[in-house]
C-alpha cells in the first residue's frame, strides 16, 4: 500500500556569513528557511570581541578614554561622557558649567550624526542602492567638520576628560554650530521626502518585527527600540544627568514597535536633538573648562559606581569596580546594541528572508559595541 506523501519541503539553512553587505559589519546569522519563510534564526557574534574592557583595566583613568570611542564608533562623544561621568562620580570631581554645556552640545550633535548613519544604512538594506547613504552623509560630513575643528580628529575624538574637556572650543564654535543647523534641517527634509512617504518602503517595513511593550522590557531593549514599542523611557528625562533638565524637549514614542516605527522614532529624535542644541548654544557660558584643583594623578577610593547615558542606540552605561589606586579593577560596559540584538530571533522568526535584513537594519547595531 503506497502511502501518498504530500509535498514536504526540506528546510534550507542559509548562512548570512560574517561578510554580508547588510549585516553592518561582522555578524553571522544562520537562518533556517522553509521556502522563503524563516523558521529559525541563530545569531553568532564575537567576531569583533577585542577586549576593550580588559585593556581598560591596565590603563589609568585618563588613558582609557580611547577605548570608549572605539567601542561604539558612531556615538563617540556619548560614550566618553558616560565614562567621564562614572569617573567623576567615583573620584568626586566637579565639572565646570562651560564644560557641561560643551559636552551636551557635542553629544546631541553626535546623536544626529549617528541617526543619519542609521537612515543611510536603513535605505541600503531596503535596496536604495546608495541614494539615501549619500544624502545622509552630506549632512554627516558637515557636522563632522565641526567635530574635527573641536577635537582634531574625524572619528576618534578623545576630547572629554574626567573633570571637563581637554582644551577650549575654537572661538567661532558658536557661529559654526548655528551655521550647520539649517543645513541639517534641510538635509532631514530631503531624506524625509525620499524615504518616509515612499510607498515601497512603507510596504516593506510596516508591521514587520513588531515588539510589544512588556516583551521589549523583558528583553532589556533600550533607546529608540524601547520607545518605538510605546514605553516613554529616556534617561535624559527619567534619570536626568548633566544639564538636560534645563532644556525643554520631548521624546518621540511609537505605537506598534515595528520597523517603520523605529525609523520614525529616530527621525523625530534628530529634530529633538537639533532643538536641544539650538537652546544650549544660546546659553553657552564662559568660564574655566577644568576644575582648577585637578590632582595630577586620579586616585579612586575603594568603591563601585555606575553611570549611564542615553546613547544613540540605547542606554550606554559604565560600571567601574575600583580597589584604590589609579587603575579601575574591573570596567564593565553595558552596551545597548548587545541587549537590543539579543531579541533578534524573537522579532525575525516567521517573516521572510528580505524582512530579516530589514529588521536587522532597524535594530541599528554597531558590532564593536555588541562584542566590545
Amino acid at each position, binding site marked *: 500500500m503506497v502511502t501518498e506523501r504530500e509535498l514536504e519541503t526540506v528546510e534550507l539553512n542559509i548562512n548570512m556569513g560574517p*561578510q554580508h553587505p547588510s549585516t553592518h559589519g561582522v555578524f553571522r546569522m544562520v537562518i533556517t528557511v522553509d521556502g522563503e519563510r524563516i523558521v529559525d534564526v541563530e545569531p553568532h557574534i564575537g567576531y*569583533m570581541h577585542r577586549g576593550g574592557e580588559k585593556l581598560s583595566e591596565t590603563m589609568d583613568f585618563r588613558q582609557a578614554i580611547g577605548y570608549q570611542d572605539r567601542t561604539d*564608533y558612531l556615538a563617540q562623544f556619548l560614550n566618553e561622557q558616560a565614562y567621564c561621568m562614572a569617573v567623576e562620580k567615583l573620584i568626586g570631581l566637579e565639572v565646570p558649567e562651560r564644560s557641561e554645556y560643551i559636552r551636551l552640545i557635542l553629544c546631541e550633535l553626535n546623536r544626529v550624526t549617528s541617526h543619519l548613519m542609521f537612515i543611510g544604512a536603513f535605505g541600503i538594506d531596503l535596496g536604495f542602492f546608495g541614494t539615501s547613504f549619500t544624502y545622509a*552623509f552630506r549632512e554627516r560630513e558637515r557636522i563632522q567638520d565641526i567635530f574635527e575643528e573641536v577635537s582634531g580628529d*574625524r572619528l*576618534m575624538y578623545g576630547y572629554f576628560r574626567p573633570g571637563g574637556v581637554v582644551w577650549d572650543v575654537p572661538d567661532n564654535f558658536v557661529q559654526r554650530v548655528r551655521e550647520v543647523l539649517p543645513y541639517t534641517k534641510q538635509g532631514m527634509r530631503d531624506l524625509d521626502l525620499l524615504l518616509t512617504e515612499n510607498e515601497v518602503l512603507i510596504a516593506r517595513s510596516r508591521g514587520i518585527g513588531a515588539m510589544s511593550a512588556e516583551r521589549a522590557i523583558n528583553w532589556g531593549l533600550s533607546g529608540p527600540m524601547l520607545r518605538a514599542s510605546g514605553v516613554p523611557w529616556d534617561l535624559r528625562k527619567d534619570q536626568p544627568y548633566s544639564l538636560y533638565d534645563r532644556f525643554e524637549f520631548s521624546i518621540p514614542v511609537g505605537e506598534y514597535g515595528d520597523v517603520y516605527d523605529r525609523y520614525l522614532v529616530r527621525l523625530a529624535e534628530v529634530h529633538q536633538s537639533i532643538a536641544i542644541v539650538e537652546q544650549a548654544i544660546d546659553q553657552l557660558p564662559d568660564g574655566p573648562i577644568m576644575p582648577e584643583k585637578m590632582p595630577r594623578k586620579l586616585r579612586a577610593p575603594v568603591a563601585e559606581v555606575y553611570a549611564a547615558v542615553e546613547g544613540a542606540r540605547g542606554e550606554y552605561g559604565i560600571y567601574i569596580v575600583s580597589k584604590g589606586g589609579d587603575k579601575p579593577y574591573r570596567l564593565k560596559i553595558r552596551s545597548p546594541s548587545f541587549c537590543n540584538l539579543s531579541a533578534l530571533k524573537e522579532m525575525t522568526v516567521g517573516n521572510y528572508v528580505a524582512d530579516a535584513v530589514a529588521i536587522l537594519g532597524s535594530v541599528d547595531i554597531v558590532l*564593536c559595541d555588541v562584542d566590545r
Partner: protein
Amino acid sequence: MEVETARGTIETTQTPAPAAPPVPVPPSERPKTGVERELELLTPAEVDHGKALYRQVLPGVLQAPAETVLALARKSSLWPMTFGLACCAIEMIATYMSHYDLERFGIVPWPSPRQSDVMIIAGTVTKKMAPAVKLLYEQMPNPKWVISMGACATNGGPYTRYDRVLQGVDKIIPVDVYVPGCPPRPEALMDGFIALQHKIMEERGKV
C-alpha cells in the same frame, strides 16, 4: 607558547588551563585546548597565481603589449569587496560617498568576493574572524590585492595586547598596501589606492 609559522612566530601568552594536572600529561595525549585548535586554523594562506584566461588560450603569443594594456585596465577598474570590520569601515564608507567619491577612480564596491579584485581589511582582525578573512581571500579570482587599512589591521592597533586579537592581518594573508591611521582619513585611503595603482603598473608582466 610559540607556534612556528612561515612569517614569524604568533606568540600568545596562553598559560595552560588554570587547573594544571599534577603529572604533566605529554601534549600528544592531552586533549587539544580550544586555543591550540584555533591556532591550526590560523596558518597563512598559500598564494598560487592561477592562469588568467588569455594565458591559457594564447600562452606566449599575446605577451608583451598585452601587459601594458592589461595593467592599465586593472589599475583603472579596481573593484573592492564590501567588507568592513570595525571603525575603519565608517571611514571607508565616507570615502565612497559624494564628498570624497572613490568612483572617480573607477572603484566600485562589489558584494561578492568572486567579482572583486581588492580586499580592504578595514578594522581589527580577531582570531575568531581570521579563518573567514582567509577563506574570503582564497575565494577571490587571481590578480588580487589586499589593502590593510588602519593600525588594527596592520599590527593589532590599540588592541594588540589582547590575546584574542591577531597582531596584524599579514600573518595570514599577503598584504600589498598598508594605510596608516586609526582610523585613516579618507584622503589616506585614496592615497593607498593610488599607491596600489603604481604598484600594479610596476609589477605588470610579473604576476
